[in-house]
């Protein structure tokens, strides 16, 4: 058997570029691709998708060409150039194991943790062997190589059907074109978004005459988006689709399917099965090759050296799997890794100029490598990072020199980035009324973590105490850091607990006073709806809400009545510590939240030592008791009003208001349906409306239209390849022009407020519409009009668009300004979820 110099697993932009470069250098190589075409991830993009080539300043080093353009063109170019370069491709080659065939490497043993079905984990030990590696394919073929480049991407493999017959050819795991099938009995398995969208696609056109059934394991659809579930139920009510809930497939035969339902077994005619039961990330396979990940966190990536080498010597990881999801990055890494394997260790990464620019203008005249080393060494939470991680980390971060007295951020500024002090010292103005009272934070330490963790505005103004070099770590980089470097995560949590306590309780407390309280503090994650305090129970723990929010309810006359809404950065449960009484109300999570649980005992000791703090808490407690009494008295006289208040509050919490910072509400007792809000939105935002007034949920004539809630921890930011989603200076969540239109944010937003669309051409002046009827008039123009008036429209790229809270517009949200009756308001939940809501019914 020949032993190749390099085996490359996966032919995405990373693997393909590596293979082409190996071919160019004349290295013996083989490119293994599991499908029958190249670059499966891009192959699966929507037809005609405009592929974007960001970041634009990054030079492309790959032997293959790549520029922004249609999916078909990009793939066509690569197919041609791969063939021309003489790349040795093997299609249909899915690698299932990679093991070293050399001698065992002393001390190189990996602990492999596997999660069992029952939730427990078991660990096995894996002894790594030296290269060359033997790669085994799923068809049993074997391939030998001295070095392996893993470029698998992050798509992973779809979960397979486990029942007998699950491997028959009419069972498929993807649906490329729902219009392809006609006159068939089709079963879609899985009630997640993918399954629902596929099922709806198959029954959308009755002319196709498909009989579509969706099989779902549970009774409802907890993981799918509300809009999808509604569309599905509407399709069922319209008779276009059948749903089998609480059902499991037990057997597949040619032409038939057997399903176990709650009422017994059903065998039905079935020509095709589309199973959308999730997919397994490639992590399990990658680990089994001896490649360690940075942590157990779902977001973690493999541990890599500066040359992309993993913990298994001779196995390299590049591309999305290494944490770089942009095509250009993937291609450059493919090139670089082959250079490294070929012995060119001096090669500077392509992003060197970008990093150079980041360090330009700082004192000390260090090279990029020296700066990275300097930061890693000085800022304690960065100590555990590898040099590759530092590079990637730096791309998303900034370093700045602040002169003595310069403000780094102000109280109440929005901001979720984390700061580390590389050199110098900052002063925290803890008292808003007296800026002269400051607390120092010194070299090596961090600040800004409260904003990062709670998603709320800055709690204090921070200025440089002397000339200070600070690294500002964006929210994304910080979250990644916490998942990659467990020690950093622990450190941030500890500091956050301490500072949150100081910030909340103030009253002249110093960190030393809190030692005992913090020693007993625990951070707990609370599911939405779960109670941390139950009315009537005894207990004296105090809870600080670190992220998310809570609602407080009291049972009056046997019914739960909504008392108040508690945002992150507040505390609950202090009453029991002060007066020793049983819990007077129930506190439950409005959304998934993190709380810090403080034991009552040390806290009581703290109160005994600090009478000021006791007074402060007493004051707070008095106002809470007053509120309770007020609601209770209302309940006696105006029972209906209080029920309505509770109903509305619960409805709003269900609609995600608990994690919102700013939400659009429409009072349908006032809304005349003129859609002036939508028109105003379009007219102030490139001609595209970012809100759908009619869509959305309604309760007691209070309507929550489809419009961004500007979440504290925006779900949409989770998985944006170019990192195009940010929080702006007035707290708005917005998407910048680097969006590549991948649609991830649209899928990730649970409220369905993002859409992908193209900018229409400019409309003629309003006056000419007024007088001569030219142009489409106020509001969003139709696609037809846009097509007719812009020859380039058809070719334009679709990008993600959403509400930006009209940031930068002096008048504030245009939708609110433009509502003639006052039906539309944009408010923060604290503003709205208060007792004043009760007056709504009194009016």
């Amino acid at each position, binding site marked *: 058997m020949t032993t190749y110099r390099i085996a490359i697993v996966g032919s995405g932009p990373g693997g393909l570029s590596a293979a082409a470069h190996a071919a160019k250098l004349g290295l013996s190589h083989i490119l293994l691709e599991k499908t029958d075409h190249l670059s499966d991830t891009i192959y699966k993009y929507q037809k005609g998708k405009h592929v974007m080539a960001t970041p634009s300043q990054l030079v492309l080093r790959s032997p293959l060409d790549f520029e922004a353009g249609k999916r078909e063109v990009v793939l066509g170019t690569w197919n041609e150039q791969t063939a021309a370069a003489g790349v040795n491709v093997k299609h249909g080659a899915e690698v299932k194991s990679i093991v070293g065939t050399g001698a065992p490497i002393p001390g190189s043993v990996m602990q492999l943790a596997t999660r069992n079905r029952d939730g427990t984990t078991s660990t096995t030990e894996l002894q790594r062997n030296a290269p060359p590696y033997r790669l085994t394919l799923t068809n049993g073929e074997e391939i030998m190589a001295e070095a392996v480049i893993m470029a698998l991407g992050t798509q992973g493999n779809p979960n397979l059907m486990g029942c007998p017959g699950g491997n028959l050819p009419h069972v498929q795991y993807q649906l490329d074109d729902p219009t392809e099938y006609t006159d068939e009995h089709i079963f879609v398995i899985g009630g997640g978004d993918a399954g629902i969208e596929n099922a709806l696609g198959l029954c959308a056109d009755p002319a196709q005459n498909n009989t579509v059934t969706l099989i779902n394991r549970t009774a409802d659809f907890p993981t799918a988006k509300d809009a999808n579930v509604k569309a599905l139920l509407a399709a069922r009510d*319209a008779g276009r689709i059948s749903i089998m809930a609480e059902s499991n497939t037990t057997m597949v035969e040619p032409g038939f399917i057997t399903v176990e339902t709650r009422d017994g077994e059903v065998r039905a005619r079935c020509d095709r099965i589309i199973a959308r039961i999730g997919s397994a990330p490639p992590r399990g396979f990658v680990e089994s090759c001896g490649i360690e990940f940075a942590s157990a966190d779902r977001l973690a990536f493999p541990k890599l050296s500066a040359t992309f080498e993993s913990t298994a010597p001779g196995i390299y990881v590049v591309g999305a799997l290494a944490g770089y999801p942009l095509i250009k990055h993937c291609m450059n890494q493919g090139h670089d890794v082959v250079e490294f394997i070929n012995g060119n260790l001096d090669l500077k990464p392509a992003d060197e100029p970008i990093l150079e620019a980041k360090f330009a203008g700082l004192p000390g005249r260090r090279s990029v490598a020296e700066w990275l080393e300097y930061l890693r060494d000085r800022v304690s939470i960065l100590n555990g990072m590898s040099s590759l991680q530092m590079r990637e980390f730096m791309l998303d971060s900034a370093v700045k020199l602040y002169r003595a007295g310069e403000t780094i951020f102000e109280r109440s500024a929005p901001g979720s980035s984390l700061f580390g002090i590389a050199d110098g010292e900052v002063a925290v103005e803890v008292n808003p009324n007296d800026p002269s009272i400051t607390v120092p934070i010194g070299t090596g330490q961090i600040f800004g973590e409260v904003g990062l963790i709670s998603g709320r505005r800055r709690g204090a103004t921070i200025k440089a105490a002397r000339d200070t070099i600070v690294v500002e770590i964006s929210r994304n980089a910080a979250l990644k850091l916490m998942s990659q470097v467990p020690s950093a995560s622990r450190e941030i949590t500890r500091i956050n607990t301490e500072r949150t306590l100081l910030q909340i309780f103030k009253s002249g407390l110093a960190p030393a006073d809190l030692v005992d309280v913090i020693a007993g503090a625990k951070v707990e994650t609370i599911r939405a709806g779960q109670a941390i305090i139950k009315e009537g129970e005894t207990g004296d723990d105090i809870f600080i809400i670190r992220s998310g929010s809570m609602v407080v309810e009291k049972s009056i006359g046997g019914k739960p009545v909504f008392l108040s809404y508690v945002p992150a950065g507040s505390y609950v449960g202090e009453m029991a510590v002060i007066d020793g009484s049983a819990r007077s109300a129930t506190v439950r999570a409005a959304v998934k939240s993190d709380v810090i649980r403080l034991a009552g005992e040390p806290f009581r000791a703290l109160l005994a030592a600090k009478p000021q703090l006791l007074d402060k808490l007493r004051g707070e407690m008095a106002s809470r008791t007053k509120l309770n009494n007020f609601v209770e008295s209302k309940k006696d006289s105006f029972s209906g009003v209080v029920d309505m208040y509770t109903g509305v509050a619960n409805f709003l919490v269900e609609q995600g208001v608990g994690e919102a910072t700013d939400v659009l509400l429409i009072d349908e007792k006032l809304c005349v349906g003129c859609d*002036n809000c939508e028109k105003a939105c379009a007219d102030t935002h490139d001609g595209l409306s970012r809100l759908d007034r009619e869509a959305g949920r309604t309760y007691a004539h209070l309507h929550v239209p489809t419009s961004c809630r500007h979440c504290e921890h925006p779900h949409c930011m989770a998985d944006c390849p170019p*990192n195009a989603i940010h929080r702006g200076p007035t707290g708005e969540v917005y998407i910048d022009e680097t969006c590549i239109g991948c649609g991830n944010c649209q899928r990730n937003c649970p409220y369905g407020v993002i859409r992908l669309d193209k900018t229409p051409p400019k409309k003629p002046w309003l006056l000419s519409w007024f007088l001569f009827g030219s142009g489409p008039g106020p509001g969003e123009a139709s696609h037809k009009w846009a097509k007719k008036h812009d020859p380039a429209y058809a070719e334009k790229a679709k990008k993600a668009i959403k509400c930006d809270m009209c940031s930068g517009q002096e*008048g*504030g949200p245009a939708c*609110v*300004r433009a509502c003639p009756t*006052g039906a539309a308001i944009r408010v923060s939940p604290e503003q709205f979820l208060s007792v004043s809501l009760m007056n709504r019914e009194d009016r």
Partner: protein
Amino acid sequence: MASTAPVRKAMTGKAVTRAPRDTAHEGFLTHKRGRWAKVALTLSIVAMGAYLLTDPVPRHNGGTWLGYLLGSIGAGMIVWLSLLGVRKRVIGSKPFSLKGWTSAHVYLGLSLIVIGTLHTGFQLGWNVHTLAWALMMIVILSGLWGISLYANLPERLSANRGEVTQLQMLEAIRTLDRQLDTAAQPLGGEDAEFVRMSLEQCTIAGSLRQRLFGNYASDGNARALAAISEKVMAGLRSGRADDRLQQIQFLLERKEAALAQARRHISLKTQLELWLYVHVPVTIALLAALLAHIISVFLYW
């Protein structure tokens, strides 16, 4: 990861205050605790006081100093009230509140009853001057009509649509049509004819009359439903129930219900706009008459 493109509006660490905005949950009639109602009321009372306290010779009319004053105020107000149509459509980025504008529009508009009428000195006759006054009164009365609709219909609109959008209502009807079409395939001549009646002779909204009075008895679907129901009943009585016809009847009933919802929706939306078809054209006529009135006054002078 690395987004290295210049960021449009990066955070600066500054506590940028948000643009001030109206977060008060009050409708246009109660805007700022009825500020404009108070202004308009004061204006009317002052005008009436001045009218009663002065005793011009030979009598009150547009030509006295008070008449001129009231006339100028009135004309200015009419022009300003008309500009609401422009304000509504030019959004820009500057602060304004259309709700505030509407609130002022309504109350100042009502005060024109006093100001405009006192301006005439009750000297009405068959001339261009009285025409302007009459048109003004029509606009104002139509405005009042509008207000009563704005006060009552939104709640009904909301209750009728629940959480369904107009598009979804129409989509539901189309879907039922497709199901009817499929279900009618095996049917014979006359029965299929009825289904076709529902498919082809059914209008959702119909004429303005129908929209307003909701009489759709002669519509294709209603007739088809009546005919099919009769046949189903006959079948039941004779003990030979026809499953296929019953299925059709069921679908026609559902379509009738879906139509009823969509029609109520459209009817309410029509009513919410209809009054504007008096308010706005008459406003334009008023502006023309006002111009004629002013020119003729100065010509005679």
